[in-house]
């Protein structure tokens, strides 16, 4: 198992290098530059050129990339041009907000999704199945910002139960978590439902029935447990969403977060920050895939053999 993990980790190194290169180049493809955002009314074109040189933006792109990579090797993400702080500080300020929101939303959609999927699978094709899956389908078929705005109108403005925006108290998390979580429920529920229906047809389940094991025990202890594997796989692949997918909701609820930091910095062309955020996301995505593989391998020895 350990060799499996080490091998997988090692295979990530070249991927990481390529990814860092793509990230660096992609942001420099965006028209415009950060210096325009920091020159003052009244300053001269020469002053702009000086500033451009000060931030090293006049060097060839490949040289700039080399400098960035060399710094990265020492763990330095660089200094924000417009925000004037170390990129690591900015990420440290924003990442926790994304993690809390994303994790809670994930927990919400996993629990509700598995429960709903299980209920729908047990009463397959009946009224309950249709009703549950129908309601859940709604969550994935409306734009999340729309759902968020309606939630604000109802629960924050009309009823006054929760704050409209911000990240200053736990109650401010409720509406964003529900908005994002509701969107994810459908995916989890669908995967759970289909997996359970599938497993219910397998031989070992038939055998359990024949042995006279109570139906509820078969459903919960045997079928649902086996159905969790595809759910875990899907979720581990979605880790990028946890960190960066909430950008729309962060905007609607005026919350800080990695997604908002990325988009604000992209709009201002604050290159080092954009690179830092994208790098964090890419690392998270790679680790997510890795964790998914490891979990799969741990739960299913055949996977381990196939992948090592």
């Amino acid at each position: 198992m350990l060799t499996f993990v080490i091998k997988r980790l090692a295979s990530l190194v070249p991927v990481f290098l390529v990814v860092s290169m793509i990230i660096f180049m992609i942001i420099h493809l965006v028209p415009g530059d950060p210096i325009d955002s920091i020159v003052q009314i009244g300053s001269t074109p020469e002053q702009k050129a000086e500033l451009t040189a000060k931030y090293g933006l006049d060097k060839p792109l490949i040289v700039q990339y080399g400098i960035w990579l060399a710094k990265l090797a020492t763990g330095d993400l660089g200094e924000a041009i417009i925000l004037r702080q170390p990129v690591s500080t900015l990420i440290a300020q924003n990442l926790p907000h994304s993690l809390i929101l994303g994790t809670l939303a994930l927990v919400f959609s996993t629990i509700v999704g598995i429960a709903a999927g299980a209920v729908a699978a047990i009463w397959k094709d009946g009224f309950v199945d249709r009703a549950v899956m129908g309601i859940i389908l709604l969550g994935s078929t409306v734009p999340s910002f729309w759902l968020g705005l309606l939630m604000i109108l109802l629960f924050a403005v009309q009823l006054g139960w929760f704050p409209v925006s911000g990240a200053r108290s736990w109650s401010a998390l409720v509406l964003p978590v529900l908005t994002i979580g509701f969107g994810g429920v459908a995916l989890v529920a669908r995967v759970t439902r289909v997996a359970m229906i599938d497993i219910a047809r397998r031989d070992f389940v038939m055998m359990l029935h024949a042995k006279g094991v109570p139906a509820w025990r078969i459903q919960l202890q045997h079928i649902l447990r086996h159905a969790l594997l595809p759910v875990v796989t899907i979720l581990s692949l979605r880790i990028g969403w946890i960190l960066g997918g909430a950008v729309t909701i962060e905007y609607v609820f005026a919350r800080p977060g990695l997604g908002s930091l990325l988009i604000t910095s992209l709009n201002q062309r604050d290159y080092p920050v954009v690179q830092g955020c994208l790098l964090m996301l890419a690392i998270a995505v790679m680790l997510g895939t890795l964790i998914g593989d490891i979990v799969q391998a741990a739960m299913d020895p055949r996977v381990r053999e196939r992948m090592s």
Partner: protein
Amino acid sequence: MRSTTKAILLCGSALLSVALLSGTAMAQDVTFVMPARDVGAPSYNPIKGTRLNAATTLIYDRMVIQDADQSFHGQLATSWETTSDGMSWTFKLKPNVKFHDDEPFNAETIVWWVPKFKGTENAFMTDAIEKVEVIDPLTVKFVMKNPDPNLLFNMASSFMGIPSPKAFDAMGDRFGVSAAVGTGPFKLESFAVGQQTVLVRNDAYNSASKLSTNQGPAKLKKITLREIPDDSTAFLELKTGGVDMLLSVPTDFLPRLSAERATKVVTLPGTEVYYMPMNTSVEPFTDIKVREATAFAINQKEILASLFGGVGAEANTFLIGGLAEAKVDPKFRIAYDPARSRKVLDDAGWALGPDGVRAKGGVKLQVKLWTQNGTEFKRITEVVQAQLKAVGIGADITVFDAATITAQYRKRTEHQLAVRVYSWANADILDWFFSGKRLGHPNHAMWNDPASEALNEKAMKGSRNWDERVTNFRAYHENLLSQFVFAPIYQPVQNFAYADARLSVPATIRGTRLQSQTVVDIEKK
């Protein structure tokens, strides 16, 4: 197992304390929402910063400040005088003033402070000062390189907030980010860019200006300034009691706000102008006739009445109405005149086509109309598009983000028309927009005309005192108006809204913006 229990207990108590804190708002603790345009301002470093937010003047005092009528008043300076040739200025300083770190403020501070601007993005503000001389511990003399009638205006800007020399030198680039030390009525407690700033009262404050009723420390004990990029979210926060005051409210919200009894709105003259530059270097705007027709097609009155409920003012020149340089000869003012537009276009040979768009020699009068992200921008642009159509000019809108649009302007030949806004309360903005040195950006009109350049030179460098400067800039302004390089659109006002039940705010705001001189008088009910 024990550590788990401990963790749960810790989490629980953290939750409990958050709940308690949010439940009981403490006396004289308030939450403001930062103006939307200030969101993301990266630091409180007045010397090196290029974007400062509305809280900056609460931390730092300036030598002089302005009232709403643009008149100058002393804050850290008690009085000043200049020689008739404009080559020296003498300032008397307020005694017994201390920075938040207990360092004294005196003539030595100014000697240290002025040269600090050299080599920064703000260097142009103190460019005309040759050196600072100490006359006595509370008197300084600025020896000038050349006369700068604009000196007091520059001194009153937020960038002229004076930081503690000791803290500034010790902290280097971290100054203004992790800590900020001034002499102002509030101390910086914490700052997370894009999120919030927490200020606490400076109990030793003694440098209030005569513009404030309260001459002692501020009444509010703690101000949390939240950064909320979306105006409607900020408004909903005020409505539901999440915050006490909004430091900016878009003018198109005012009709709605007047329906809310619990909120009060205070209005100040604005420093913004919405305008439409025309790229004079590309067809069809190389022709002054087309520019004239375009400028007179804009219905300022309709935009003011329908989009902004009559709040604010029509823009008929390129400067804000409050400036003396904006009082031009009436024949130069640009005000809606569709008959004139149509006639000029007819005369120039642009004949109306069947689809309502004019054409000449097979070329349609169909132009690019650019705008930026943001509700007010898009609303004005869509109305402008319809107004141009009404005189036979077809316009295709493209919405850009700010950085992309600037990159496009730099290409010089890509753009034709655009809807833009600037915020500046001085006639030297004309130099910024029309100097031949800055073609492309910010000279979006691509205006580089010898006669205009000469007038610019005279206005910028050839004025010895304020009155001469006004005359010279007015002449330059009239010249530009006569060339129809911009189409002026609208002048917003500044609006602040607060919860009447929770705050008492002075009836008149003293200053060109809501700054420390007024905030020290704000009180929680």
